[in-house]
């Protein structure tokens, strides 16, 4: 038994954030190795290091027993490592052969590409993958699953012995996933080593020889597939019971401010949110959780109006808002702290002042006719900075120069000071320090106690358990459970999250 990959104490820091913490990871040659973990557990970082897209801060890598330093993807390819990215790396205008051979085109006489030779090899690979595809049409005309398998073919064409697949099934329908897994089994027979990143337990169980679990940058364990059961894996993914719990007074809810009825959301033809119904009352924090990519993001976008609902209804304060645009929804009493601070939450190239007044600028106290009242805006911005403890030297500096925690406080300050009865807060503590997190949590509870309805979307178990009055769990687009934190434990919540249990 030889090891295809062996890492020794791999550590990767992004600033102060530890993405990988002293990881000893090994993969047996000719096996399929699944890497499981929640979003942000460090799975993608680990494999990017193996493919040379990231350099480890510390640590050592051995490929087939030889210690190597992989500076870039070209060196990884030379070491016969192939990476199948989550996004496609195909040129849509090129044929399969032109894509497979990109960068290593064989030439006949002098310098003209010789695609006849390539096509012969391509045909062999496609036969092996059981994909009889046309060789003379641009790849843009093929379906998503065909292109996914083409990516594998491309890695094989380049002589990959080790294939790394980053969440390969996330774009595929269930039938196509089976087909892909069959192909991977076939490749294992051919002697290839396969690393598959996934957050789907079933896939890991049905295909892997070994399963590794990462949590918060640490490799929790690597176990052979027959020596581990689902319960153990869920426990490893979600961690132990939380130690600190926040003090939260029980109080009766008010009326149902937000009512979601049979909501469906599509991404093109793919139904991402399926028939979801729930309500959020005044004075309640509704915690929505699930493994990333199970429809939470799309559900939130449909609520605030960034994405159209395909079916179903959203009622806010008794009125159907499903056909309203974002501004109308916000003016009627919704505020939104988005998941992605930099892309959606703020305009990072603008000043702190500009960022703080967005959304407030059309309120009557801040403008006179077409002109903004700068004095009022400035004093308003200074109040937010003070109230929400944003550390910034002046109102004129770029929002992009703030640290993640400060930027988050700025966005939360802006949204909370709209004083809307409904707050949507997505992943508020992602990537920020403990102090800020605590601050954000206490703010959320304070608002809840004064009668706000809050939708908290989070993948962090501690956050969900500590803050929520009720918890909703999404799995593959459905709301599979609505429960109370005192009625379940983390393990049961984990079972809901991976779809091995449901209560509604």
């Amino acid at each position: 038994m030889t090891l295809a990959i062996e890492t020794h104490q791999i550590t990767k820091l992004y600033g102060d954030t530890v993405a990988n913490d002293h990881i000893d990871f090994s993969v047996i040659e000719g096996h399929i190795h699944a890497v499981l973990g929640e979003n942000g557990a460090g799975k993608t970082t680990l494999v990017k290091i193996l493919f040379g897209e990231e350099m480890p801060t510390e640590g050592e890598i051995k490929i087939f027993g030889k210690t190597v330093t992989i500076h870039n993807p070209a060196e990884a390819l030379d070491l016969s490592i192939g990476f199948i990215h989550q996004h496609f790396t195909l040129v849509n205008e090129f044929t399969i052969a032109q894509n497979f051979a990109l960068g290593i085109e064989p030439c006949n006489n002098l310098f003209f590409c010789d695609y006849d030779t390539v096509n012969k090899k391509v045909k062999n690979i496609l036969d092996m993958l059981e994909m009889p595809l046309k060789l003379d049409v641009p790849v843009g005309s093929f379906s998503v699953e065909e292109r996914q398998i083409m990516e594998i073919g491309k890695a094989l064409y380049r002589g990959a012995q080790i294939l790394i697949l980053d969440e390969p099934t996330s774009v595929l329908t269930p039938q196509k996933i089976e087909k892909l897994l069959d192909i991977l089994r076939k490749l294992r027979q051919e002697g290839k080593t396969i690393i598959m990143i996934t957050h789907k337990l079933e896939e890991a169980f049905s295909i892997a020889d070994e399963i590794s679990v990462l949590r918060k940058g640490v490799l929790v364990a690597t176990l052979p597939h027959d020596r581990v059961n689902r319960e153990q894996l869920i426990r490893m993914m979600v961690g132990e019971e939380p130690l600190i719990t926040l003090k939260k007074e029980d109080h009766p809810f008010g009326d149902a401010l937000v009512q979601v009825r049979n909501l469906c959301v599509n991404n093109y033809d793919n139904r991402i949110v399926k028939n979801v119904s729930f309500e959020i009352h005044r004075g309640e924090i509704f915690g929505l959780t699930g493994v990333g990519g199970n429809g939470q993001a799309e559900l939130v976008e449909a609520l605030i109006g960034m994405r159209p609902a395909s079916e179903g209804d959203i009622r806010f304060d008794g009125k159907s808002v499903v056909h309203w645009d974002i501004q109308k929804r916000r003016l009627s009493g919704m505020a939104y702290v988005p998941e992605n601070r930099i892309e959606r939450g703020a305009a990072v190239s603008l000043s702190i002042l500009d960022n703080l007044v967005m959304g407030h600028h059309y309120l009557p106290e801040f403008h006179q006719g077409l002109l903004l009242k700068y004095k009022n805006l400035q004093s308003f911005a200074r109040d937010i900075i003070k109230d929400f403890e944003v550390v910034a030297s002046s109102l004129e500096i770029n929002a992009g120069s703030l640290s993640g925690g400060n930027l988050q406080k700025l966005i939360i300050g802006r949204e909370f000071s709209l004083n809307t009865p409904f707050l949507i807060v997505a992943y508020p503590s992602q990537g920020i320090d403990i102090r800020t997190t605590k601050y954000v949590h206490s703010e959320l509870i304070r608002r809840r106690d004064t009668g706000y309805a809050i939708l908290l979307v989070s993948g962090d178990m501690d956050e969900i358990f500590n803050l929520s009055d009720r918890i909703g769990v999404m799995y593959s687009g459905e709301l599979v459970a609505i429960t109370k934190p005192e009625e379940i434990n983390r393990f049961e919540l984990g079972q809901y999250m991976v779809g091995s249990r449901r209560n509604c």
Partner: protein
Amino acid sequence: MENTIEFLRASIRLTTPLLMAALGGAFMQVSGVPNVGMEGMMLIAALVGYIFCFTTGSWVMGLFFGVAAAVIVGIIYAIFVLRLKADIFAVGITLNIMMGGIAAYIIRRYYDQISILLSQDAKLLPILSFSFLDKSPILNLLLNNYSLLIPISFLLVAATYIVFYKTPFGFWLRAAGSNPSAVSASGKSITGIRLSAFVISAVFCGMAGVHLSMGYLGMFALSLVAGRGFIALAIVLFGSGNPIIVLIASLIFGIADAASLRIPTEVIPPQFPLMLPYIITILAIILMSRYARSFTSSEQ
């Protein structure tokens, strides 16, 4: 008859600077970076080439140093865009303005001229004459005895076509423009590929500039590029970098350019024909804007 022939010859002469620059622009365009600095590259090449052709008395030196000057500008452009991640339009336009300033400074400071440089010693690009064309008088009149770079510019259409669609480098260029992550996943450097596109583009624009001063006019004037760099950019965008479409569009503009000099002034005031190339450019841009939108959206 003679008028028609002369008109066609003028069209061909005026097509060359546009065609040459636009082919160069195509190299950058297909690799995903539009060349906004063609105007400046052409101007500096025209000046440096002309200065060398009368100081050294050799057109070879003129051609070489003219092109070299454009390549230096191209490399500076590339450093700003690829390495320092500056905005390609801002840098391109700045370089154009700067080259205008540098050219004006040089002829003022060293030659004491306001806007024109003309020397008796200038050794211009040679006129090529092919004896095999003598047999047919029409072909001889139409196709023979052109300045060196004119036949070359038409040969470069074929060369560019072959490079784009038949050689590995062409596939890398087009892949860099279409899906950069495909290039990096294959282990090639996007920056390296685009840098070579900048250099090739500069060589072509340099030749276009040298043709203007050392072939077409036989002198240097600050206004000799006259927006041709921007018209060439419009041609590139119009043909989305396809050399065949670039050829056709360049011919149309060349003909319009020649026509604008020939429309009798009694019929239309002279200012209007002179506007013709620019009006056609604007029309072309409007026509292709629909295509451009779909191009940017597929980039994202």
